[in-house]
């Protein structure tokens, strides 16, 4: 018997109408599952790999006015040691007398070893010129510690101070919307729209929060370092523009990194 198209359409419409509330329910329950599934599918071909490869090349290439490589750069575990450094940053460096995060330390090395102008790099927008190279280098250094657990040192007084300042910056409310990092990130189980918000006042778990950046952002095809992640947080908080590797951004890294002690790093990861 040939089904009349009219009947089929009506049946279909009834079915869709009946399913709609169910679909909304099912959607609500499995939205988080759906997003997790999407992320799993993306894991296999993370374009962060491309930035990792670029970063590795940049580490070994002789560049800059001094035509030198970065292979003698000290990221905290001795000159040239890369593996394991990502999960111990930020930390205190005797040669600069400061607590530094990965990106500011890379810029220090680019200046002292290769002769680049650190202030010029800091002024360069993300994704351009030498700043893009800093991001690629950071991606590779992070990848070299993938799977390791965060263990930032807190033995030097400057490291302890960085933590305390980072905590205060985290809770600082400002701007026309009275936002602070804490407004979104100091409570368990919250989300903004459908984006889960990790609690960064403690260890939020393996591969979450501090342990997930640098990350490749699929939605805009960009490689985001921790400095860029913090920069965009401040933009969304309606704050003015934070200086690249300013003391407060390094302190925030210390605060989050120390709180994440023991969490496994999955950086560089992939994000929507």
């Amino acid at each position, binding site marked *: 018997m040939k089904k009349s198209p009219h009947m089929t359409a009506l049946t279909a419409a009834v079915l869709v109408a009946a399913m709609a509330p169910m679909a909304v329910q099912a959607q609500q329950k499995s*939205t988080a599952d759906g997003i997790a599934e999407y992320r799993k599918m993306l894991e296999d071909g993370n374009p962060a790999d491309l930035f990792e490869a670029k970063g590795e090349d940049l580490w070994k290439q002789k560049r800059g006015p001094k035509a030198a490589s970065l292979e003698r750069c000290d990221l905290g575990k001795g000159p040239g040691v890369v593996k394991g450094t990502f999960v111990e940053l930020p930390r205190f460096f005797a040669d600069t007398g400061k607590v530094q995060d990965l990106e500011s330390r890379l810029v220090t090395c680019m200046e002292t070893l290769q002769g680049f102008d650190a202030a010029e790099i800091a002024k360069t927008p993300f994704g351009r010129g030498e700043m893009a190279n800093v991001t690629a280098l950071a991606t590779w250094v992070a990848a070299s510690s993938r799977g390791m657990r965060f263990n930032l040192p807190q033995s030097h007084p400057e490291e302890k101070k960085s933590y305390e*300042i980072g905590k205060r910056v985290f809770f600082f409310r*400002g701007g*026309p919307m009275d936002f602070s990092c804490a407004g979104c990130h100091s409570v368990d189980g919250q989300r903004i729209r459908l984006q889960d918000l990790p609690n960064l006042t403690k260890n939020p778990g393996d591969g979450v929060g501090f342990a997930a950046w640098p990350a490749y952002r699929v939605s805009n095809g960009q490689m985001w370092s921790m400095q860029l992640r913090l920069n965009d947080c401040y933009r969304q908080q309606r704050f003015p523009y934070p200086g690249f590797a300013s003391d*407060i951004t390094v302190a925030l890294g210390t605060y989050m990194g120390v709180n994440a002690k023991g969490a496994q790093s999955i950086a560089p990861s992939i994000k929507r």
Partner: protein
Amino acid sequence: MTKKPFLFSLAAVSAAVLLASCASVPAGPTAAELDAETLKLIQVAFRDQGIAKVDRIKQDLGQSACSSDKEPTEAVADAVTAQAKNTVKWPTGGQYIGNWREGERIAQSGRGLTWTDSSAATSANGGSCYNCHQVSKEEISYGTIGPSLYNYGKNRGVRDIMAPTSQPIIEYTWMKIWNSKSYNACSNMPRFGHMGILDEKQIAHVMALLLDPNSPVNK
């Protein structure tokens, strides 16, 4: 067997000596010193960008009182809420309630006031309500930072917005949206009227979304 107590007391003596010498090592900065240094570092960290100027990080009482992992004292909290109540501007001509369709549009929009926004005019801004709240039942993409506002008017017995019995709820809701610190010193909710995020017409539209019995929120 007799050796144990001796070793124990030797260890205890050594520990006491260590503790004594630790006491003479200079202690780290005090909490107050760290607070002051943090504020100094914040001042120098930022620069103007687009419409986001550095004067934005100058804190008012409501912000500085709530910038800690600890709640402010009752006295400070009371000062904040009292100051907030005084800032509330009632709508011109008593127009509390606007159009709920416009309200939904404003609730959905998270735009405005970032350094990538070209204008600081309120007309360019959204209320970002869905970022933190459930509002209508239809929209599943909602946040959980604030309580659900679904059935807001219905739950509060608002059946007729013109009835005198609805007025207290209408005024409470207006005050909460205009300046959330009127009722909660450290509210996470932006002060939409006081900070110039939304103007009185936009707030009236959001009011309609929440309180108009015809709004999907109350169905």
